[in-house]
């Protein structure tokens, strides 16, 4: 720590020559549309003095006299000369628009113009969220940003999403990007997952509050978060007001309905009873199990009984504006959604207030707060005993209702005497009651101090406080209801803060040379705790809470925290805004590593060359061309809080006495996982700026992986985290925007796409045989040098023996094995990571009409259907209901089939194999919207727009599961590519209106 205390001193030395001054003038630089331009160059003509504008487009410069002339430059604009004429405030506005490239982008350090960037950043604005009916912002981002791949954990309202930026770098540490809202690093730990997947942690963020989303993809772009940016950074900026802006009011409302987009096509009662009988005979089972008369069996469609037509409505209101010294934004919204699952719903109440205030000449302070409350009525998901799960395999040949028309709660028997218990799908849904309440407040305060021209200090404090309380209850008839009902309460609390302070010095040495230097320090603390109690014994199913339970059967709790401390510096040099060079470095420590291994060093360098500014550059129709490149290191520390320490857990108890048990072993060498990324990109604007975009190529090598290497469970632990191994991701990305037609009838196409080639470079050799050990997860996801992460590794299915209906598998020599193939015959077959992903938006306008269609796609990957293996296509191995595909099972009359003979409770082809692995390429019409605007209603600028929209309208795919865009396993996992009773996405239709004045 001693070296650190020198820091402020060094700082003062560094700055002291600047504290000399004379006559100062100030102002704001804007583009033709009235938007502020950061980083515009202001030179004082005939002197060596100059400056650049800050993120709000403001500048301040000293001039020798009242008759000085300012020279204002911004790439892509004609340089302007502006006489001061004795004014002390000189506001400047460029005339001709330069189009997309003076788009203002939020970087880690504040606003900047896309022109000046040397890092790789993709961004979208508020238009992708406006009026799009999604419960959480991630879903609106699917397919919108090149190289950003999102997959929903489920189609459920409250499900989390897998987000991967530029591939999957880590095998065992977290792979989710860092998500930052207005400078607050949000906790991305999923909420309670007592019944299926974890609650999406971002449900509290109202998508309609978002002004822009920037994705920082390379080391240069993510300096400010570099130590934890190995998986990329998603920077969310919410709406704000502007100084000197007239109040603007926006009101919006939409409502609509939703439905399950696809269902599991299972057998009806008669079909099931027939297949059952067949399977009894084929297995040589006891003939007492046969249905006497299969064709007269009753039939119940369980999926129909647990689903409904969902309903959604959302109301929002906002007002923004500003005076010369202050700006504000206030907004609020209410969303009420009932899912297509009968008992599932969500209500979100959210408010947001943001105020910026200038205090005197040198200070600006700002404050924003966003309180929200979300109530989720949930149900179990994605396991066999969940409502949808059981609706697929539960016997269809029984009656669902009693004589009163209520769900039956007695023990259900099929007519052959088979017992199905009391927890039929209807009971499973109705007698499980889960209410999850989330309260969250996001708060941010900052102070800017500009003691001298070109010198800025900024300190910024952001905090997230969240509390999730969940109440759960199972009735007596429910499978988890025990004898007298069970229940649980869960309380989870997050308090995170981060405090960043930095000093920036901008200097315009001469007309051609500008330099910007930043030094800063950043503190982050994350604290998490939760407690959980499970209780039993209720007098009846109406009483729900812990106080009415007879006893607490189980309880647990955790309290943990992590701290990060980082020092960073950044140096940017620009020559005539033509040659750009940025150097940055960070020194970061984390409490997640042992005291000796805490710190990591993360440097980056990047450069840009605006070719189109060169004198020699005169290619027709090329308006702008920039080449940029970067190279740097980023880190990842997304592991358990004390993964380095061998720990003994003191929660066990036996016979009423407290005990302890080994949970992990000492591992003091653990340190940062590092990503080394090279990026080269081209940004361009052609044809009078009608065709704009960028093209990138990157290679990201993640080294010193925080690898959870499986070790033999005979050691008492089954994995150990080690810094070993390397993974490479590389690919091309493009973002394009093309104004195909302009004028009355307009047509804009926006497209993005990314390729991905993922390769494991190196793994650990723990067993000491001199070879790197393969890692196989779940018996089928292979990690092996030379192969893509989580490559499928399965016994190859060889169809059915026409002679006897046995399933066949290939051994490694290509011979067919009957009925069962040992795991030693596994071979590589198919990737779990898509090789090409992207999206495309068509935007049509005709007078007051607008039409938007947005597609997204993923290709090149496969998904393993665990639900088909375990329950639905297993040839009656578990005796539960099957998919209609199983009607094609082998019989002496039907020998040419791929479906083996059905044999009750006898394996025939249901072992893990490529039989359950399917290509999952798809193209989805994600969003279609038609709107009509009434302009200048009553007063200039007022606008009313009515619209109709559809979400998830069409999916083109050959994938046999219900939804190719979901993932079963936890969102942080490297090994994606499994579907198991995932809820399919909902299809939503809405109508709404916006009013703006």
């Amino acid at each position: 720590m001693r070296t650190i205390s020198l820091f402020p001193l060094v700082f003062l030395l560094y700055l002291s020559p600047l504290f000399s001054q004379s006559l100062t003038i100030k102002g704001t630089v804007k583009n033709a549309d009235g938007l502020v331009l950061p980083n515009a160059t202001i030179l004082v003509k005939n002197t060596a003095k100059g400056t650049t504008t800050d993120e709000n487009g403001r500048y301040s410069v000293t001039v020798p006299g009242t008759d000085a002339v300012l020279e204002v430059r911004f790439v892509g604009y004609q340089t302007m000369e502006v006489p001061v004429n004795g004014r002390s405030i000189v506001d400047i506005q460029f005339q001709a628009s330069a189009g997309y490239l003076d788009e203002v982008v939020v970087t880690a350090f504040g606003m900047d113009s896309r022109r000046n960037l040397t890092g790789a950043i993709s961004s979208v604005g508020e238009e992708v969220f406006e009026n799009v009916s999604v419960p959480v912002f991630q879903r609106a981002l699917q397919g919108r940003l090149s190289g950003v791949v999102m997959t929903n954990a489920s189609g459920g309202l409250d499900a989390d999403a897998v987000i991967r930026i530029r591939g999957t770098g880590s095998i065992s540490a977290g792979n989710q990007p860092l998500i930052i809202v207005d400078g607050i690093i949000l906790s991305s730990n999923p909420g309670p997952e007592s019944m299926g997947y974890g609650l999406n942690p971002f449900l509290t963020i109202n998508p309609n509050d978002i002004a822009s989303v920037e994705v920082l993809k390379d080391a240069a772009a993510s300096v400010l978060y570099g130590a934890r940016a190995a998986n990329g950074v998603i920077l969310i900026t919410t709406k704000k007001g502007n100084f000197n802006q007239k109040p603007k009011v926006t009101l919006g409302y939409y409502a609509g309905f939703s439905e399950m987009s696809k269902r599991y096509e299972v057998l009806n009662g008669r079909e099931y009873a027939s297949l059952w009988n067949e399977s009894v005979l084929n297995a040589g089972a006891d003939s007492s199990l046969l249905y006497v008369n299969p064709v007269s069996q009753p039939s119940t469609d369980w999926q129909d009984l647990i689903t409904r037509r969902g309903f959604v409505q959302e109301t929002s209101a906002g007002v923004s504006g500003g005076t010369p010294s202050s700006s504000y934004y206030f907004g609020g919204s209410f969303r009420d959604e009932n899912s297509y699952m009968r008992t599932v719903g969500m209500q979100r109440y959210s408010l947001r207030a943001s105020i910026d205030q200038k205090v005197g000449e040198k200070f600006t302070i700002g404050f924003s707060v966003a309180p929200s409350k979300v109530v989720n009525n949930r149900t179990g998901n994605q396991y066999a005993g969940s409502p949808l799960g059981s609706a697929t395999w539960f016997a269809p040949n029984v009656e669902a209702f009693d004589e009163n028309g209520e769900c039956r709660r007695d023990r259900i028997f099929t007519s052959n005497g088979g017992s199905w218990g009391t927890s039929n799908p209807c009971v499973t849904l109705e007698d499980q009651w889960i209410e999850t309440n989330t309260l969250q407040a996001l708060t941010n305060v900052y102070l800017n101090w500009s003691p001298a021209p070109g010198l800025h200090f900024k300190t910024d404090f952001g905090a997230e406080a969240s509390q999730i309380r969940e109440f759960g209850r199972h009735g007596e008839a429910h499978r988890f209801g025990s004898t007298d009902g069970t229940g649980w309460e869960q309380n989870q609390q997050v308090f995170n803060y981060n405090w960043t302070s930095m000093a920036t010095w901008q200097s315009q040495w001469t007309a051609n040379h500008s330099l910007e230097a930043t030094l800063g320090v950043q503190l982050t603390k994350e604290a998490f705790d939760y407690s959980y109690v499970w209780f039993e014994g209720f007098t009846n199913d109406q009483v729900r809470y812990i106080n009415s339970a007879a006893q607490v059967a189980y309880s647990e709790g955790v309290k943990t925290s992590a701290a990060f401390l980082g020092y960073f510096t950044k140096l940017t040099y620009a020559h005539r805004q033509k040659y750009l060079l940025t150097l940055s470095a960070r020194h970061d420590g984390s409490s997640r590593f042992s005291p000796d291994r805490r710190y990591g060093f993360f440097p980056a360098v990047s450069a840009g060359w605006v070719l189109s500014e060169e004198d020699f550059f005169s290619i027709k129709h090329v308006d702008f061309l920039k080449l940029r490149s970067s190279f740097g290191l980023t880190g990842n520390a997304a592991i358990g809080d004390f993964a380095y320490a061998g720990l003994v857990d003191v929660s066990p108890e036996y016979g009423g006495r407290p005990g302890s048990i080994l949970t992990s072993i000492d591992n003091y060498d653990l340190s940062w996982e590092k990503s080394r990324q090279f990026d080269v990109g081209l940004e361009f604007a052609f044809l009078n700026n009608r065709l704009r975009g960028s093209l990138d190529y990157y290679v990201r090598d993640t080294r010193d992986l925080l690898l959870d290497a499986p070790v033999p469970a005979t050691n008492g632990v089954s994995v150990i985290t080690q810094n070993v191994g390397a993974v490479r991701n590389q690919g091309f990305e493009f973002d394009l925007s093309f104004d195909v037609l302009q004028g009355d009838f307009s047509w804009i196409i926006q497209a993005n796409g990314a390729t991905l080639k993922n390769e494991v470079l190196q793994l650990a050799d723990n067993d000491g045989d001199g070879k790197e050990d393969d890692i196989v997860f779940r018996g089928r996801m292979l990690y092996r040098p030379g192969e893509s992460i989580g490559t499928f590794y399965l016994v190859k299915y060889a169809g059915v023996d026409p002679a006897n209906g046995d399933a066949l598998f290939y051994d490694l020599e290509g011979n067919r094995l009957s009925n069962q193939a040992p795991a030693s015959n596994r071979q590589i077959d198919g990737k779990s990571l898509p090789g090409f992903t992207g999206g495309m938006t068509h935007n049509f306008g005709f007078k007051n009409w607008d039409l938007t269609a947005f597609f997204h796609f993923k290709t090149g990957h496969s998904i393993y259907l665990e639900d088909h293996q375990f329950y639905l296509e297993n040839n009656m191995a578990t005796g539960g209901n099957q998919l209609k595909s199983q009607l094609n099972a082998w019989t002496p009359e039907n020998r040419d089939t791929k479906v083996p003979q059905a044999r009750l409770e006898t394996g025939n082809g249901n072992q893990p194999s490529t039989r359950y692995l399917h290509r999952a390429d798809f193209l989805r019409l994600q969003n279609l919207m038609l709107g009509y605007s009434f302009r200048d209603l009553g007063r200039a600028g007022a606008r009313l727009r009515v619209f109709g929209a559809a979400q998830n309208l069409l999916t083109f795919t050959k994938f046999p599961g219900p939804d190719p865009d979901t993932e079963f396993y936890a969102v942080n996992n490297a090994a994606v590519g499994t579907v198991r009773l995932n809820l399919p996405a909902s299809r939503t239709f809405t109508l709404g209106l916006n009013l703006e004045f």
Partner: protein
Amino acid sequence: MKTAHPLLIVFFCCLLACNFLDDPEPTGSIPIGQAFRTADDIEAGLVGAYDAVQNGHLLGRNLIVFPDLMGGNADYTGSGWFGLPEIANLQISTTSWFVENLWRQAYLSISQVNQILASLPEVRRNDASVSPAEYDRMEGEAAFLRGAVYFELVRLFALPYEEQFLDSLGVPLVLEPVLSKEDLRFPSRATIGEVYQQVIQDLDLAIEKLQPASQRGRANRFTALAYRACVAFQQRDYDSVKQLTLELVENSPFKLTDTPGKFFMEKGTAEAIWVLLNEPGDGITGGGLSNMFYGSTVRPNLKSEGYEKIVTPEQLSRIEADGFRVVDLRVDTGFISNYPFVTPDTAFVRKYTDDSDTPVARLAEFMLMRAEALARTGDMESAVFLLNKIRGRSLRIVGANGFVVPEAEKDYVFFETTDDVLEAIIRERRVELAFEGNYFHDLMRLKSEDVQGKRYDDPKLRFPIPQREMDANPALVQNTGY
């Protein structure tokens, strides 16, 4: 510059947070190096080991359920436990969730015990707060748990105990603690003979170190003797069984409860030698034995070859000649039984409630074990005496008027031949101990030709080494047939 100073301090005062990174500390956990330093620590570690052994994947539930499913006493026809039918039908896959967790939980327990045994000598030297006898108890309990778990493992993952198989693959023997990355090992499978040797060594140590009395649910001298007898029984070493059960059966505080159901209805009966406690806070409530057996039906064979043949044809003819009939209190026949184990029509397993402790060893089992050992070594009279104590508790001879006729008991206590006695003991064992985790192991011991249609040494009667473990440890060799 004067105004600048205080402001700069505000800006960078976060620099003063020198020990910021040292602040987070684990709560609810203790660093491994500090966890086994005192006698109290060792005791806590033992409690943890019991908790691990009591886990549903181990002795708390599955090791009690599996042998009756695999042997063919019960069939799982319910819908709540996926993966259980394949165990009941002997179609076990290498990726079975149950097998993988059984393996993991067993070695977690062993690892915990290894740590206790390794720390004990030093703690014994340094901490005089407890008596040497207490330390002996701790050592005995730890050794007992390790022996018991290895015994359960070798019975399920390896071929049955037999001279010709002693050099066949058993399970890996891990006896040293693993505390850090450097301690990780990739053990290969020891032979069956080696595993049995280790089991006997551990159990003998436990017998030596443990006192006859203990807290409820904890191991004591009798518990260790009981397990040691089970090992000898599995080895078909009937002379040793006779010796080991002498103290357990003839010279111990244990007593049969007066009805067969009482042991299962009430906690803390004198019949219990070792139960794993099922109490609030233990975390297996609801997911315990009753839950898993809830969806299990009694296979017809247990009725036709078990309950319905508890008396021999000769005995039955004597009874019927007197105009009486037999009632078995263990079966619900609408008679006086207040706690039948099975129902006659739907034949559901009803032995346990949500609150039941898990029975691992109870007196009746060892009386029958002793009876069999006596019969096999020629002492028929003592064998029949023990057998009839068990039968007498459950069998009632009922007259035409529906009342019990106590004096008619004589009709079923005599056997015609010595083969009849042995057969009756074995059948009684199957019925009395049904759903308590014995039947499969008995079939192995008896070298049955018909374990659900398979010979006792059929490869499909062994659990596979979990695929996860095979993938993680190249030193392992998979069982034949997988």
